[in-house]
């Protein structure tokens, strides 16, 4: 059995619509003044490119700087190691000439 429609509801549903007027020329004009997301994106593309290039250059420079720093650290560490090794070698050859087969003849020759 169908329930009777609420009179308020039926009055609302039968209310003549207010359709207004189609004003496409006005809207078209407004749209021309503003740009779509994609066209704004296209316009901003060169700026984005420049920002990208600058970031890439900065990144490359930072990387190069880091590598330079690392290289000098390695070099200084290597130099220190070499000096230490030479000093140790000299001490060893003086105190234990077995290590250096020429040490004994040299010492005798210089007597």
């Amino acid at each position, binding site marked *: 059995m169908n329930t009777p429609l609420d009179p308020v509801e039926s009055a609302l549903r039968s209310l*003549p619509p*207010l*359709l207004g007027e189609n004003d496409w020329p006005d809207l078209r004009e407004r749209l021309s003044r503003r740009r779509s997301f*994609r066209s704004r994106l296209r316009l901003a593309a060169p700026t984005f490119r420049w920002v990208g290039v600058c970031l890439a250059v900065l990144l490359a420079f930072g990387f190069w700087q880091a590598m330079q720093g690392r290289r000098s650290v390695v070099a200084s560490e290597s130099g220190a190691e070499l000096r230490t090794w030479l000093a140790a070698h000299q001490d060893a050859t003086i105190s234990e000439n077995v290590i250096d087969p020429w040490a004994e003849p040299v010492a005798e020759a210089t007597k």
Partner: protein
Amino acid sequence: MSASDWIRWVALAREGDKDAFHRLYCATRPRLHNAVAHLVPSDLASEIVQRAFVRSWEHLSDLAEDAAFGGWIRRIAVNLVRDHWRREKVSVELPGDDDPHALADDQPDPESLWETRWEAAQLRQAISELPLAFREAVVLHYLDDLPVEEVSRILDVPKGTVLSRLSRGRARLRLSLAALREVTQ
């Protein structure tokens, strides 16, 4: 109009095709105008509808489901309507349940209320006097003929809230129309 038409036109409009957007405008504007004209003073309705279309044009890339353009632009229009009333400092708060004007839906209607047909103007006036939250639900559901689920999506409230607002909106309309009839008789 089929869903594939909507999808095609939205996709073209997103690429900047104004003819496709014109088709969307022609297909959605009349019903959108009808809804907006019952939510703001009639002289403002056209302006808000135009602004809703401008905003939709600018943000078409945000539309997740192309076939849902109609619901999406209604949500934009409802937000513009709310902005308008906020600027006008009109409260969009809901009246409490103890509000004496909020008649229960099952309250007996005044017998005389249903004897004659209401004039459209009276009904429109009664709608315009509803609190905005009730008016949004009533206009979108009864005047724009949208299902409750769609109204709940547009207003971003649960379905139960929409049903409650519809019920309370109808009750208020019943009361307003009774009062209007008393004045006019």
